[in-house]
């Protein structure tokens, strides 16, 4: 039997503000526990929440980038539940009127584009961080009240691969916009996935299973792939797929049952009566939403047009904000864009992966890489020598000229000097000339090798190639 997988994703994103959503406590969750907690966060009697303007601004930016319809009148609701992570007994959220709805983003899978709908984007507050030990739990309220947006996708995603592409694309857009630092491993971007299957052609959705707390994009894909397999196996055995919450276990690459959802929790939502409806200034909303920086897919198109890069190169360069910023600096200093893009994508990325580093840790200034590429083009250093220079530049703050001097790199491009060496090789290996004219290709390579040996690898390879052919032609005559 053929099945169709239906996936919906909920993403909680911590906003990059200085203070919390409703209180003036600092928005820093990694500090000493409970040092940034305000009575408003704890819901002490007599306190009144006040909405953070920056959080609204960042939410508007996110909504605009995700092509959402924006509601410029803010309404908040209470989601009531009794649990220690929110001492008020409720979370302030937007249930009835989310700030954004009916948006979409476009993902690309194997060259094919697909639109994934966004159901809603709403603002809310984060809860306290709980550390569970064997017999007790510790609570740190620094995270309680941190501004969040929740982005809920429509059930348009059909595979683990599409889900991973969706989260990655969303993360990339939001990083570019500086809305959040989007660190999945630290919890500033948290992802819950709803997975169900149904036989092809069936209109009704199957029973959905929620997978919680996926801490990396690759785990999103792995968890879904496993979960789909598990559900198919149950279906084919005639066993029921139950409504439950599971978590991904990294060690076994499986999903593990956390709890069964016997009935939907009734959160008894009602209007947050401590916050009157807030009508946003239309001019301000326009100003915020019309000044969005260039987004990754827009840059991708521009890089192809302006710099003549392939679509693959443009995609890789814009897939990481830090890499993109480095490249944009680079192009200010030299014009061989294609080669410079290659150095960034192949050599630089390779070096960083090998040394477990990120773009932020690169010591080499963009102008130095640009200068190095210019030296290759001008024949001052060979591509092979450039690789040595590059390795040294990556771990020091020295200039290309300093490194070249240090490594004693000289490239001999002088015709007179090279001809002398070529003739010395002819005298030493006359049989190679005969071999060459007898059609043995290896003879040419052998002579190049001898020239490089005599010049200690410093001869300009292009020049040697050209001069050697020129001199051999003379024998013909």
């Amino acid at each position: 039997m053929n099945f169709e997988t239906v996936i919906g994703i909920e993403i909680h994103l911590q906003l990059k503000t200085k203070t919390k959503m409703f209180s003036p406590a600092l928005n820093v969750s990694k500090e000493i526990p409970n040092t940034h907690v305000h009575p408003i966060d704890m819901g002490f009697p007599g306190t009144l929440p006040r909405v953070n303007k920056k959080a609204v601004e960042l939410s508007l930016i996110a909504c605009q980038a995700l092509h959402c319809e924006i509601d410029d009148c803010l309404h908040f609701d209470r989601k009531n539940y009794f649990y220690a992570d929110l001492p008020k007994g409720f979370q302030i959220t937007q249930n009835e009127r989310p700030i954004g709805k009916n948006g979409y983003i476009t993902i690309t899978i194997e060259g094919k584009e697909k639109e994934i709908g966004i159901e809603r984007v709403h603002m809310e507050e984060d809860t306290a961080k709980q550390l569970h030990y064997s017999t007790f739990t510790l609570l740190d309220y620094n995270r309680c009240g941190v501004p969040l947006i929740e982005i809920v996708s429509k059930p348009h995603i059909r595979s683990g691969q599409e889900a991973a592409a969706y989260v990655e694309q969303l993360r990339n857009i939001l990083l570019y916009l500086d809305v959040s630092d989007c660190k999945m491993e630290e919890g500033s971007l948290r992802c819950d996935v709803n997975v169900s299957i149904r036989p092809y052609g069936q209109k009704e959705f199957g029973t959905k299973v929620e997978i919680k707390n996926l801490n990396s994009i690759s785990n999103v894909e792995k968890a879904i792939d496993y979960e789909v397999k598990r559900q198919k196996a149950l279906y084919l055995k005639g066993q029921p797929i139950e409504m439950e919450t599971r978590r991904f276990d990294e060690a076994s690459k499986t999903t593990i049952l956390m709890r069964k959802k016997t009935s939907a929790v009734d959160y008894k939502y009602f209007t947050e009566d401590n916050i009157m409806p807030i009508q946003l200034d239309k001019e301000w909303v326009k100003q915020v939403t019309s000044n969005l920086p260039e987004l990754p897919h827009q840059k991708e198109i521009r890089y192809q047009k302006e710099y003549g890069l392939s679509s693959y190169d443009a995609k890789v360069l814009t897939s990481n904000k830090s890499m993109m910023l480095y490249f944009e600096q680079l192009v200010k200093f030299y014009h061989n864009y294609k080669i410079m893009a290659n150095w960034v994508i192949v050599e630089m990325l390779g070096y960083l992966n090998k040394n477990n580093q990120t773009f932020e840790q690169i010591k080499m200034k963009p102008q130095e890489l640009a200068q190095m590429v210019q030296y290759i083009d001008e024949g001052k250093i060979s591509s092979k020598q450039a690789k040595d220079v590059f390795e040294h530049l990556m771990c020091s703050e020295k200039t290309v000229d300093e490194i070249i001097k240090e490594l004693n790199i000289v490239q001999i491009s002088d015709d007179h000097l090279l001809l002398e060496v070529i003739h010395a090789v002819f005298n030493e290996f006359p049989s190679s000339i005969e071999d060459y004219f007898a059609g043995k290709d290896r003879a040419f390579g052998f002579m190049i090798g001898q020239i490089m040996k005599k010049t200690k690898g410093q001869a300009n390879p292009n020049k040697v190639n050209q001069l050697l052919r020129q001199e051999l032609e003379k024998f013909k005559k």
Partner: protein
Amino acid sequence: MEKISVEKLKEWALNLKLDMSDSQYATLQDEFDILLRQMDRINQTIDTTHVVPMSFPFDVTFTNLRDDDEVEESHRDEILKNAHEVMDGQIKIHKVVE
């Protein structure tokens, strides 16, 4: 509307940590009964299908948002004073998850 049972009242009282006598439950049940009958009557006489819930007494909006630079710190000692038990600067509670 369905009548509220004493069992239901006892369940709510427990959730709300109220200690009540049997006679108080009986009074409460009578009061709920009156209230529910009044609600039924309203439902029969007024059509509220298109009426928006009046969460606020006046139909007004305001424009005030808090600037992100008003920082106020730190209430750590006061916050922790309310906890039964504190460990490493964190509030210690019974574990309620498996």
